[in-house]
Structure formats: structure tokens, C-alpha cells
């Protein structure tokens, strides 16, 4: 991507070692101005480390961090125009809500009167105006979370870093705060870099997502791109549920590949960049597969069990050639559910399947 002025944060080849543990391996990312950007990955993949590196709490072993054209890699945390919403909030326990939110403003040299007005605005934004005089210990988890957000928003940072800010909240509250966060991001126009290991959170909130594994960026793209066009097996498997069929790839050209399915049927389908001939994996999402009458589908197997999920029903099918496939069906009366032990054929539109790099 070119380095134009709508890049907020340009992370160039950043490597971070903790002793001999490599937490980040040559991470490069362009985060656009005004974007809701999410770092998504399993536990221990380096998400927090990357945020801490941007905030300045960790020195990097190698690389550069360009914030709106300025290399900030050597600045102290208090010199960087970014603010953080900490995973455990880290509210100052001896200050009330107002003083907490005012802290950054006063450090930036604002006078008390102006700072007070700004605190009022921000507390309004996070709907905590009635709690201005409370101490953090007198607030619920969700309220504390919003104070942490208000405190980080008050100095109008160029970039806001959020480290799993919703993880301590229960499901209902999490969904409410998610919406609030998105609205606040829209209203303020601040670039958000948001860390989560919850893929649903990532898919619903983000403009773009970076999927990280073992300190390396696996793929960057919109929710749709990542879900529908995963680059590799890790991304396909980590985002949503997918079936990975062992296939042998015969032919590759212009983003398409031919492969032979278990059972011998040959299909042509989209292929990820870097896919190569030989044995490979074909990813097919459970909702793309239908169960058909014998002889009418692409692969064959016996129904192993049903998993009831309320609105949905998952049917697990053991393929005749080995391996198993999950089929997702809507739980409606119109659909005939095959019985356990029944031999069935499975069908899918090859365009919605995808050949992956290992």
C-alpha cells in the first residue's frame, strides 16, 4: 500500500523479543485514518504486545512505527499522541470519575475550567454524567469500562488503542457496549485499534481485521474478505467454522484451481494466492453444503450425529473416504433431517469453496 496521508499508523517490519521469546515477527500493517481496525488472534499470539509497542510500553527490537508521518518508535509513552483503554481498566483508585477523566487533559496543560467542560462532554458521550463524583470502587464493571474509555477519549488522541476492553463484561452488556463503541468511533472520527480474541466481536465491529498468529500477520482485510476469502488454513479455521477436505490439486490458473475431491469428483474453484499443485486443502463453510439424494452430490458419507443449536442444526457426516464434514441446516420443519447412520450425498457450489495454502 502506498504511504499516502490517510494512513494513521504505519507499522513497518516490527520485531519484538522477550529474552529469546519472539512475540512479534516482522509485523507490517497499514492502519488507515478514521478506521476501526481490529487485531484478532488466539491467546498468546502477540496482540497485546503489538498494542503495547504502539503505546510505547515496550521497546521494539527492530522496525519502525510511523504515526501520521512521524516515527514514534523512540518516543516515551507520555510523548505519543495515542491513548489506551486497558484490559483491566487501570483507573486511578484514589481519584473520582471526573478526576480520572481529567488526568490527561491537565497533563496536556489545559486549565481546569476547560478541562472540566471537556470532561462533561466526554462523560455525556459515554452516558456517565450522573456518575461524575463516584469513586471507581463504587462503579460496576461496565461503568468502569466506560470511565476507562472516557479517560482515554478526553485528550482527543489521534489513535485509540483498546485491549480487549469488553472481555470483563457479560454477554448482554458486551453487546450494548459494542454498539456504543462503534457509535463513539463514528462520532469522534478517532482511529481505533481494537484487540480481541472474539471473532464475532471482530466481524461485527471492524472496518478491517488483521488476523495474527504466533506473532505474524496472517491476513488483513474486511470481515467479508477474511471470512469468504481466507488466505490460508489458519485463517479459514480460526474465523468461523469450516470444513477442510483433503484434495489433490491438479491445475492452477488465474486464481482458480482444479482439484479432485475424496471420492474422485473433479471440480474447479477459487484458489488462495500461493496454492500449489499436489495435495492440498479445500475449505467449505458448513452453511454452503446441502444434503442431497444419493448420487446427486460431490461427496458421500454417513450421518454420524446431530447437534442441536436452537435456530440451527449441525449434521456431522463421516465421509466414506475418511474425514468428516459438518453441514449446517436451518432448524425449520420444511427440511428433512437425515437420520443418524443414513448414507447421504453432500453438494456445494464450487464457487463458494476455496483452495488454501497450508
Amino acid at each position, binding site marked *: 500500500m502506498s504511504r499516502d496521508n490517510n494512513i494513521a499508523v504505519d507499522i513497518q517490519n516490527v520485531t519484538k523479543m522477550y529474552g529469546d521469546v519472539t512475540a512479534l515477527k516482522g509485523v507490517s500493517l497499514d492502519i488507515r485514518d478514521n478506521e476501526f481496525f481490529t487485531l484478532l488472534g488466539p491467546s498468546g499470539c502477540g496482540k497485546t504486545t503489538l498494542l503495547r509497542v504502539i*503505546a*510505547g*510500553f515496550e521497546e521494539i527490537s527492530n522496525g519502525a512505527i510511523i504515526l501520521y508521518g512521524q516515527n514514534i518508535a523512540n518516543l*516515551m*509513552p*507520555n*510523548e505519543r499522541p*495515542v*491513548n*489506551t483503554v*486497558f484490559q*483491566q481498566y*487501570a*483507573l*486511578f*483508585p*484514589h481519584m473520582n470519575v471526573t478526576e480520572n477523566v481529567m*488526568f*490527561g487533559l491537565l*497533563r*496536556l496543560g489545559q486549565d481546569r475550567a476547560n478541562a472540566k467542560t471537556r470532561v462533561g462532554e466526554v462523560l455525556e458521550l459515554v452516558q456517565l454524567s450522573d456518575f461524575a463524583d463516584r*469513586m*471507581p*470502587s463504587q462503579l460496576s464493571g461496565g461503568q468502569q469500562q466506560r470511565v476507562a474509555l472516557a*479517560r*482515554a477519549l478526553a*485528550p482527543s488522541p489521534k489513535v485509540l488503542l483498546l485491549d480487549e476492553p469488553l472481555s470483563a463484561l457479560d454477554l448482554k452488556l458486551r453487546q450494548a457496549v459494542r454498539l456504543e463503541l462503534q457509535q463513539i468511533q463514528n462520532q469522534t472520527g478517532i482511529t481505533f485499534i481494537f484487540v480481541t480474541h472474539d471473532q464475532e466481536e471482530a466481524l461485527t465491529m471492524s472496518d478491517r481485521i488483521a488476523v495474527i498468529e504466533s506473532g505474524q500477520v496472517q491476513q488483513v482485510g474486511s470481515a467479508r474478505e477474511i471470512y469468504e476469502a481466507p488466505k490460508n488454513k489458519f485463517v479459514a479455521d480460526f474465523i468461523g467454522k469450516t470444513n477442510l477436505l483433503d484434495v489433490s490439486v491438479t491445475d492452477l490458473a488465474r486464481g482458480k484451481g482444479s482439484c479432485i475431491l475424496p471420492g474422485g469428483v473433479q471440480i474447479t474453484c477459487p484458489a488462495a494466492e500461493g496454492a500449489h499443485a499436489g495435495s492440498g486443502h479445500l475449505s467449505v463453510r458448513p452453511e454452503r453444503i446441502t444434503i442431497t439424494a444419493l448420487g446427486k452430490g460431490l461427496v458421500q458419507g454417513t450421518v454420524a450425529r446431530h447437534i442441536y443449536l436452537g435456530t440451527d442444526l449441525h449434521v456431522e457426516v463421516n465421509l466414506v473416504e475418511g474425514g468428516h464434514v459438518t453441514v449446517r441446516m436451518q432448524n425449520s420443519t420444511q427440511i428433512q433431517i437425515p437420520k443418524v447412520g443414513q448414507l447421504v450425498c453432500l453438494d456445494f457450489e464450487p464457487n463458494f469453496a476455496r483452495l488454501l495454502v497450508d
Partner: protein
Amino acid sequence: MAASPQQNSRAMNNNYDGFGVPLILPSWIIIGFFLVVPVAMMLMYSFLTKEFRGGVIWEFSLAAYDQFFFDRGLFGDSPPVIEWTYISIFWRSIWQAGVATFFCLLIGFPTAWFIATRTGRNSTIWLFLITIPYWVNLLIRTISMKFLIRDNGPLNEFLISFGVISEPFHIINTNLAVQLGLFYSYLPFMVLPIYAAVERYNFALSEAAADLYASRTVTLTKVILPAVKPGIVAGCILVFVPSLGAFLAPDLLGGAKNFMIGSLIEEQFKGNAGNWPFGAAASMILLSLVLIVLTLYARHQARGQR
């Protein structure tokens, strides 16, 4: 002030009151025998008449307090004027104890911080090292200190041989010697509570402060110090109070000029020359002074909590 953990534990105690009574009984007995009874005796003695060879005559008298605060001339028949001798000893003691507390804090805080921020077993080792000298009796330590700092002692010889000074640096029998002695006697009482507070400190708060544009100094004064304040206050009380009543350091290091309350009281109970009621009265005045200061502090804290 936000002290929710304390509040919580208080709430918990209430729930367990039923178990509390028998469990707490031994403490009450010990406190009763070794604190309440002696203090009550002391209070009583302070209102009795002195016997010339030590001891008391069982006869009510305000003479001890009168002697402390008023001067009635050589024969006790002049009109009373304020007696400054003892008040100034008290004042000097407060000053000496205050200076010692200040230096303990100055040295103790960084020490405690250093120990608390060591990783793993290292902090235990450092704590252990800090306490080792205190396995030796206080009297012996104070006498050793006297030998170290006297005019021809190792400290002066060392400084002279390296040409830092040409004349011996006269420390012994000065205020400084007393302060050094008190500082050395009570340093661990400063280090340990601050260590405990820093150990509990959430270092994410320092990161949050830095993230919100606070310099290191501001982080220290606005975030760290308020958070570890209970430890600092506990340390200051634990150093100040015993320093105030100390008599070993002032006696051995300070000489006659640098008399402190502790020595004054000790004299009154020594040999035949003493005056028990006067010693008891001086103790009661000292005790009241300490209690007043602590009560004022507790009040101040309680107001902050609301």
C-alpha cells in the same frame, strides 16, 4: 479515599462476629495484661506523691504535673511561671524524631521500592538482608555505632586517609549523632510497610499515567504516592513513635546536651535519685501527645473516605 479492600474486610468481620469472640479472646487478654494494666498503673502513679528513695507514697497529688509545666522557684513559694526545661526537651525530642523519620522515609522509600520491584525470590533475599543487622541487640548496635563515628573512629580515619577531610568530623554528642542512631535503629520499620504497599501496587496504573501524558515525576506524585500512602503513613508512625521515646541513641550518642524524653523518663525510675510520679506524668504526657496526633490523622483519613 477509595479503600474498598479495607471496607470489604470490615464487612466480612461483621459477618463472622459469632466466631470472632472466642478467637479474639487471647488477644484481648494479652492486650489487657500488657497494655491496659501498665498504662492504668502509670496513670495512677502520676497522681501520687513521690517517695525520696524511689517509689511512691499513696497520697493523691498533682505535684508531678505541676513540676513538669510550672516553675515555683527554689522553695516552691514564688508565683508559678511556665517551666520550659521539660517542654523544650519534649520539643527537641519531637524534632529529633521528626528528622529521623524524614531520613528513614528518604532512604526507606527507594529501598522498599527497589526490593518490591525485584523479580521472584530476589525480593525475599533483599528483605532478609535488610533485617539481618536487627538480629543483634539494639544496645550493642548503638554502642558499635558510637565506636564507628567517634572522632578517632573508623569513619573519620577513613575520610581523613582519603583526604576528604583534614580534621576529624565531629559527630559524636551532636544532634546529628542522635538522628543517625535513630535512623539506623528504626529504618526497617519504614522499609517493611512501604515494601508491603509497593508490592500490592498495580503497575498498570503507572502505565496508564504515562499513557495520559504524565512525566515520571507526575506519575510518582499523583499516582504512585497516593496509592502507597497507607504504607508510608504506617512506616512514619512506626519510626516516629519509638524514636520519640527512645533513650539508647540519645544517651549513648547524644551525650548530656541532647537529652530526649526517653532519657528523661528513664532517669526518673533509675536508682534512688528518681521521681516515679514525675516519670509517670512525663510518660502520660508523651502518650497523650502521640494519641492526639494519631487521632487527628485518623479523623483526617475518615473524612477523606467519605
